[in-house]
């Protein structure tokens, strides 16, 4: 929304600036049908030909009140059918590019979704073919949501900061400090809620530093983010060894939030256990997603935020206090990443460990760009990363002969492909990373 409505900047007008290489644009034009074809062929030739026996999909968690019957499919045939569908969609896409067929943006997105879905189902069918253990779809989806919580919240933080015109690479540091402070606060006070609040505040503490150096001292924001991450990584690692290891019982022994089933909704088969039977963190993620989406696109705050990210000078001219607003947005956004960090310690693991966020802040950053700087897009991209992680862990638990490391690196390759613009160009807010100097 924000990117497409941006006015064409004068820098783009002269022809001699940024000439488009012709070979790449042709490749980009046909990228979608080519990708579909490749995926369809993989469905048929790799998964279909090598799948023997039948694959079982389970749809209810163990000990569920209402159980859904398992779905047993002949694996090879499933792969062939899904591969065929994918190839058919590739042809449709090609026709639309050649002008024989008109496809709206919604139709194209649905097509991409179907292709990816077909690919994943073929992969699972091949993986589970001939296995005695059924593949539990609910476990996969439930785990995906939980694994993605820090990435989703971090990505939401990134969306708010970027929309306000501040590059936030320090999401990683916000997550890590949030995890650290939540663990200490909960251990000392014995209150999970206080821990959650402290985690959120820790996230915004990093954001205060980010704002101070980026908005007031005009430090390059990419450099700054990396340095802040190093600072938090060093600081938490240091404090972990200096105070948490010797006083582990009192400082690093937090409780964790237990799962709370949403009354009524939680009992719906499949949907209930996936979406409405989790810790407070998942519900907070829903609320925050809704708040950020409505806030950015339906309120005066959102309009002003987008204005200071696109054209701070114009915003300043109409009386918006750009610097104050950037500060406020960055600090408030920091609260969200802090909550995401708190999930590591008081949401899942139950104790702090050095470098606990292990780069998920960077993944959140990628998810934000992947999701085209929109809240829903960022959440969807974050779920994709979480999905791969969860799929890998389930597949390795049922002894599938698949290279887990290769599976784990796929989302990163996909992100490079997306960022490279082969699947549509991503453009951020115009003034992102450019400090505003009030003259």
């Amino acid at each position, binding site marked *: 929304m924000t990117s497409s409505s941006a006015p064409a900047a004068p820098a783009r007008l002269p022809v001699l600036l940024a000439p488009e290489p012709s070979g*790449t644009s042709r490749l980009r034009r046909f990228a979608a049908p080519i990708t579909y074809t490749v995926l369809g062929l993989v469905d048929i030739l790799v998964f279909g030909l090598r799948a023997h026996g039948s694959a079982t999909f389970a749809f209810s968690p163990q000990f569920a009140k209402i159980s859904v019957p398992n779905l047993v499919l002949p694996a090879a045939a499933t792969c062939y059918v899904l591969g065929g569908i994918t190839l058919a969609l590739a042809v449709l896409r090609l026709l639309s590019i050649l002008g024989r067929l008109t496809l709206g943006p919604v139709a194209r997105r649905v097509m991409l979704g179907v292709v990816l879905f077909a690919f994943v189902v073929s992969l699972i069918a091949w993986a589970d073919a001939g296995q005695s253990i059924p593949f539990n779809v609910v476990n996969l989806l439930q785990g995906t949501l939980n694994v993605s919580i820090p990435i989703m919240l971090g990505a939401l933080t990134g969306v708010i900061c970027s929309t306000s015109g501040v590059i936030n690479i320090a999401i990683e540091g916000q997550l890590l400090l949030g995890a650290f402070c939540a663990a200490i606060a909960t251990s000392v006070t014995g209150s999970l809620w206080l821990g959650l609040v402290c985690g959120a505040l820790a996230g915004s503490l990093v954001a205060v530093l980010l704002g101070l150096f980026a908005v007031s001292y005009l430090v390059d924001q990419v450099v700054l983010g990396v340095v802040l991450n190093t*600072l938090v990584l*060093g600081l938490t690692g*240091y404090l972990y060894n200096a105070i948490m290891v010797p006083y582990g019982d009192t400082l690093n022994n937090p409780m964790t939030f237990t799962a709370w089933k949403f009354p009524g909704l939680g009992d719906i088969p499949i949907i209930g256990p996936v979406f409405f039977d989790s810790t407070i963190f998942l519900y907070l993620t829903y609320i925050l997603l809704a708040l950020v989406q409505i806030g950015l696109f339906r309120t005066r705050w959102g309009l002003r935020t987008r204005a200071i990210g696109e054209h701070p000078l114009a915003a300043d001219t109409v009386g918006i206090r750009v610097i104050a607003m950037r500060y406020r947005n960055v600090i408030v956004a920091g609260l969200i990443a802090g909550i995401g960090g708190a999930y590591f310690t008081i949401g899942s693991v139950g104790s702090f460990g050095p470098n606990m966020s292990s*780069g998920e802040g960077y993944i959140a950053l*990628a998810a934000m760009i992947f999701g085209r700087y929109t809240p829903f897009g960022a959440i969807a991209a974050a779920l994709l990363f979480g999905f791969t992680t969860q799929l890998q862990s389930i597949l390795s638990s049922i002894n599938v002969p698949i290279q887990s490391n290769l599976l784990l690196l796929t989302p*990163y390759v996909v992100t490079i492909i997306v*960022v490279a*613009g082969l699947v549509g160009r991503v453009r951020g807010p115009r003034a992102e990373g450019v400090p505003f100097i009030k003259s």
Partner: protein
Amino acid sequence: MTTPPQAEPAATPPAGADKGREKSPRKSFGTILRESFLEGNTFTVTVLALVTATVLGGILCAFTNSTVLHAPTAGATISRAWDVASGTYVALFEGSVFNPHTIAALFQQASLSTAVHDGYLAAVFQPLSETAVQATPLILTGLAVALPYRAGLFNIGGQGQFIGGAIMAAWLGYDVHLPIVVHVVVCVIGGFVGGAVVGWFTGEIKARTGAHEVIVTIMLNYVMQYFLAYLLSSQSLLQASGSPYPITPSIASNAHLPLLFGSNLRINVGFLIALACAFGVWWLLNRTTTGFEFRSVGANASAARVAGMNVERSWVLVFLIGGGLAGLAGSAVIQGTDFTLNPQSYGTYGIDAITVALLGLGRPGGVVAAGLLFGALHAGSPGMQTITSTPVQIVQVLQALIVLFVAAPPLIRAIFRLRAARAGGVGSTMSKGWNA
């Protein structure tokens, strides 16, 4: 000779031109250092940043120490805090520059020849040797960040490029059998190529599609990390046969980088390679047309394009060379000290490199100085942890604080109430967005 009064206005333009030349990046490091020192600009800010970071680091380690926290009185707290902080820094110094005890031990020996023979002389130089060993990959990866930085690009991909170089160096080191000098050279070149391929990929994507190099390099770091894990997970690939751990076989002794001062000191040819690379980068940037193009592209890509320079070519080339330098760091670690490759080999070099390049203000000479400083911190930290029980992570905190303050000259000026200087720090020189 007296100057006519009307000549004074005419004398102003040359002074202005002189000022303009001072700001151009063509100056050598020595000139910059001298001018900055005299004028109180960047150099003063850097020194004050070091001082501030040192003080903050000292406060941190003093007030997390259990003896300080359990002090009975306020006076005791302060004196114990001083003891802990100074003890930490003294231990760091003794582990990285020189330790008086080793000198004392040297003078207790009967003659110089026995001292040399028994390794007492080596013990004196052992801290410096360790500093050089630790500085080697830091300088090389620091150059890998600094060179693209001068062309206006930010290379966070040091880790991925390091892994690329390390994979090649390790593989050529154990799987190929060559005569003594040839093997070292082949492995070092292999390391360069391995890193250069990863770097080239980033540059190529940036040049062809305009994708932001920061995101591409972050993603490539993960790709390379998992790719390494994949290579080390199967004995048909790189894993040592019979080993339950993800580790390669040891490289052949022919592929070890030769030691410079005998077997007691770990300092090796890798350090010389790093210095040579720093000189090479300086020469490339300041004495060649290609380097001029790099700097022009970094200063203003649009202007460089209008002037007929191939901006995309510069992007690709700068990332190719930068990646190669990070790959050389991988080869220096594998061939100089580790001799095998495992998932811990790449450490935190990718992030450390950024701090080195920033502290070095993106200049080769500065990178060497910053690499030696951080190398000294790394070399001294294990001994410091043993002696003072201050965790080694204090080094990472110090590094980040130093760079944070170096990158924000206005903050340092505000703290120390300096007047605004003409030259800004590294942070204020290139503040631009994703879309630039």
